[in-house]
């Protein structure tokens, strides 16, 4: 008992320890306050200067070069005119309007806009507000000379983007003023900052943007700047953005855009071994220079009103039936599932006829095995293959099971989901599954109902990127690397997503068979026009039926057959046969990339094809006057 009470007494004393700890903490803090507020060297300095002015210093955005180091995107200085409402008084409005080349009505309207809190929620008469943006050095120089006449007006230096070439607008994307959503989600941005809004400018925004710096200036009571606070001890210089190397070849891109003039559609070329995108053409297109400068808003309106949708990146956002190019993926699935062997032959008498269902085909020998079936693009062969796969009740208990198995193969080849390219806005396409048909046909469907998916029609939809990736997968004999447009990031490793190999569910040996089929198509099948003595081309045409109009012309191929350097997809909307546009354009693109130039005969061909118009071509170029 005595021990217990002694213990109690011991513990009782601890209240002094705890009270002591609290007292010491508070005293230390008060001492710290004393030093910060009363003893620091700038205390006296601050006595006569009662305000700081924090100036943001914007970093230079990273530059962008193509795979051969050719400069694509760089920065150029631009000047914003800022106004502090509370400081501007007694200004000669007429003079300022004359200097800036605006009308007094415009001046008044802009001033009203700035003061309107609904349109400008961050408004304060004591802080700098944007008056006019993105003036060139020429435009600003006369203003700067007279600035002493315009109290309350300031000039803020910014950098804006400039483009070396008029190409690849969709991949490069653009930079615009930050929107409310990004302001909300990322503390880095302040109203009026710039942010990448499309293309790699968007997807690599954090790499390109750098880090803003700050200068803390001392101001006296009349607002005059007296110099850096504590000689710049607390200033932070901006950190410039890092540079990007794209995988694009700007020469190839230029040829692609030329060949697609006056046509709607897309060209995607991929280096099979690495997944690097060599060119990505979406047509119609526009000059990326249209997105900079003060004409930006006007140009954007112009582009968004065009019914041919030049702003749409068809390469990753267009979802099309792949047509016969899809047959290669079917051959691979059937081989791996032992539905067929390379020597299995199916009959085809101008098409697939069964229980009253007919899928037409063109004239060729019958019956025929797989390699010539791919070579001549026989519809009957692949309909029979799918029918035999989906009808095999020993292997698949129900047609749904077969469908699910089939879907798994398709997904393993990169269809039905976004591939994950490093560009915003990619679409996933459509690979139907059993559930899809159960809903569509209320559970009553069979192999014949869905037979057209075997020839890339019906519900199946792919993006041109997915078709090109199919070509790359076949070129690699069974794997792909997720396609990407950025090859190198300064000071950073590429995401492993863009270096890892994705294997499909099909063995290499079956890919060799399909490669033989695609070679046959070039030698004496549907792609004969792509044949060249320079290297061995493999290809597959597609003529995608289009219920809304003329059929689409598709070509998927790669070259050379051994050690492929390029895999390509050409998709020309309403281009009729695969051989009409797809094959010749694909052949020219492969020649340009592999040889680095076009032969004189090919150059003639390129001129012919770039002059063939399916739509009225509009050349969207930037207004040269404002550059």
């Amino acid at each position, binding site marked *: 008992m005595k021990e217990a009470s002694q213990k109690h007494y011991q513990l009782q004393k601890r209240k002094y320890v705890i009270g002591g700890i609290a007292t010491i903490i508070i005293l230390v803090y008060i001492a710290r306050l004393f030093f910060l507020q*009363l003893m620091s060297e700038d205390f006296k300095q601050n006595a006569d200067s009662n305000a700081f002015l924090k100036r943001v210093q914007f970093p230079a955005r990273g530059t962008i070069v193509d795979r051969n180091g050719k400069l694509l995107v760089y920065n150029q200085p631009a000047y914003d005119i800022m106004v502090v409402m509370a400081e501007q008084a007694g200004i000669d409005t007429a003079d300022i309007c004359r200097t800036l080349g605006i009308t007094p009505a415009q001046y008044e309207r802009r001033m009203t806009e700035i003061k309107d809190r609904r349109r400008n929620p961050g408004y304060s008469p004591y802080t700098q507000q944007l008056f006019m943006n993105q003036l060139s050095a020429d435009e600003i120089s006369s203003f700067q000379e007279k600035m002493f006449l315009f109290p309350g007006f300031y000039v803020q230096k910014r950098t804006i983007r400039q483009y070396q070439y008029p190409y690849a607008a969709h991949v490069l994307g653009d930079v615009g003023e930050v929107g409310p959503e990004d302001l909300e989600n990322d503390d880095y941005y302040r109203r009026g900052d710039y942010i990448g809004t499309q293309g790699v400018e968007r997807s690599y925004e954090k790499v390109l943007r750098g880090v803003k710096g700050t200068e803390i200036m001392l101001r006296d009571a009349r607002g005059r700047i007296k110099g850096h606070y504590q000689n710049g001890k607390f200033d932070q210089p901006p950190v410039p953005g890092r540079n990007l190397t794209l995988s694009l070849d700007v020469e190839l891109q230029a040829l692609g855009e030329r060949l697609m003039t006056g046509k709607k559609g897309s060209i995607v070329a991929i280096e099979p071994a690495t997944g690097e995108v060599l060119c990505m053409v979406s047509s119609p297109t526009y000059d990326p220079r249209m997105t900079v400068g003060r004409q930006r808003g006007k140009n954007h309106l112009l582009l968004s009103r065009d019914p041919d949708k030049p702003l749409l990146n068809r390469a990753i956002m267009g979802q099309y039936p792949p047509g016969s190019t899809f047959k290669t993926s079917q051959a691979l699935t059937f081989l791996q599932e032992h539905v067929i062997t390379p020597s299995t032959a199916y009959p085809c008498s101008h098409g697939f006829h069964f229980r009253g269902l007919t899928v037409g085909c063109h004239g060729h020998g019958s019956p025929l095995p797989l390699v010539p079936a791919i070579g001549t693009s026989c519809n009957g062969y692949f309909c029979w293959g799918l029918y035999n796969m989906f009808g095999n009740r020993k292997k698949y208990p129900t047609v749904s099971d077969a469908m699910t198995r089939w879907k798994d193969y398709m997904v393993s080849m990169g269809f039905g989901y976004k591939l994950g390219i490093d560009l915003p806005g990619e679409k996933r396409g459509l690979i139907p599954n059993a559930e899809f048909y159960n809903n569509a046909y209320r559970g009553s469907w069979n192999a014949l109902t869905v037979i057209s998916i075997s020839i890339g029609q019906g519900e199946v939809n792919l993006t041109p990127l997915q078709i090109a990736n199919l070509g790359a997968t076949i070129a690699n004999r069974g794997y792909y690397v997720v396609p990407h447009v950025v090859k190198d990031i300064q000071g950073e490793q590429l995401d492993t997503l863009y270096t890892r190999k994705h294997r499909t569910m099909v063995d290499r040996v079956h890919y060799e068979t399909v490669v033989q089929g695609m070679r046959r198509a070039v030698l004496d099948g549907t792609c004969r026009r792509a044949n060249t003595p320079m290297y061995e081309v493999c290809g597959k045409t597609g003529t995608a039926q289009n219920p809304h109009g003329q059929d689409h012309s598709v070509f998927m191929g790669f070259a050379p057959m051994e050690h492929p350097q390029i895999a390509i997809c050409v998709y020309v909307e309403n281009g009729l046969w695969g051989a009409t546009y797809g094959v010749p354009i694909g052949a020219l693109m492969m020649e340009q990339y592999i040889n680095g130039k076009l032969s004189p005969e090919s150059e003639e061909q390129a001129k012919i094809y770039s002059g063939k118009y399916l739509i009225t071509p509009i050349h969207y170029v930037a207004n040269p006057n404002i550059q």
Partner: protein
Amino acid sequence: MSQTPTSNSKSVWRSLDWFTILLYGALLAMGWMSVCGASYDFDQAGNFFDFGTRSGMQIVWIGTSLVLASVILATDDRLIESFSYLIYIGFLVVLFITPFLAHDIKGSLSWIKVGSLSIQPAEFAKFGTALCVSKVIAAFDLRMDRFRDFVVCSVLVLAPMVLIVLQKETGSALVYLSFFLMMYRYGMPGSILFTAVAAVVYFVVGIRYADVPLWEDTPTRLGECCVLLLIHLFSVGLMLVYTALRMPAFKVLAYGLLALLLAVGTDRYALPFDIAYVQWGVMAGMMLYLLYLSLRERLLRYLYIAFFAIGSVGFFYSANHVLTEVLEPHQQMRIRVLLGLEDDPRGAGYNVIQAKIAIGSGGLEGKGFLNGTQTKLKYVPEQDTDFIFCTVGEEEGFIGSATVLLLFLLLILRLIHVAERQPHAFGRVYGYCVMSIFLFHVFINVGMVLGLTPVIGIPLPFFSYGGSSLWGFTILLFILLRIDASRGRLSR
């Protein structure tokens, strides 16, 4: 002085601790003024009561807090006590489901929407935990010097803490460490508290100054040197406190400091070398001496002190190793930012610099109410929540901010007094819980603004803008006042 429950409501007002309520009111008033200053726009021109503004909303939170306080005072404290377990378990469930319901606010998953209100359950779970811990300790007569009791108590405290960490609100979770101060009062060995504090100090000091040289042209690192010196000093302190002989402690101190002084002198003026080598030597010498003493005096305590020193050295170097070698760079970054070590210009470092400039510009008397330019022009981020003390420093100057700190000190000392005078264990323990929580918040929040403690985002009681935290602190405090008001009642 025996009372029947019916006469209770009258006596509550008479026996209420009005001194604490006065402090509460004063802090609330100064807090509201600071929110006005921090959220004020130059041209908003005096509309502090407009509900569209932060200051107007804060009025709403203060009003509702006073209603809450009255409701608590009108409730029988025995009722509150009997619901302790239920409240605690209820909060554990809410904390568990919060991340699933939460909408992401700047990476934190701790806010849930009730109607149009956003509520942070973590702010309320503190009083639930305090009630439950107090009830368990009182009901089972737990003593913190018994290992089993200590573990039970720790588990009760750590459970909500883990759940809050899962909401990515590490700051709010760390507040639960304050319960260990209460446990210290009720018997937790002081050595545990001391060791924990020592470990935190080694870690923060060691990491923070890991790459800072003592001066130019020397391989000596400031962090390592300081930590080794601290271990040396702590060991001497332990010898003085825990052993009867004074002389050996002074010897260790004198020889150790002498060696260090010689080493520093050589390093500075003769041959630059790493002083850590000498300090290792001092450590080794101290160990051998302690071993010798424990054999000579036949006293195990010397051996324990030697263990403490060895453990400290081991902890320091292994923590360093884990941070720099084992962890991935982004994990390292997160820890460094959490500790406020990374001078990420838009992150922690930026806040601290801006806060120091704002406070420093306040001077003796401050710039006056609503005249702070630093906080007004939105240079200080989170200026009306976690960094509210900046506004106090800038607008009220040294006089105002020191007054605020003294008011907090008074409140904390008063809470100790109130806790100590409770006749029942439940009230005593609860009182210490409340006091510890307030102390922790003031310690971390003000320390962070002054650049003395790591940047951990927790509110300053009664000052930071926000309904959840104000309600949470009010409930915490007024339950104690309600218990205190019935202290005259002998039987429970």
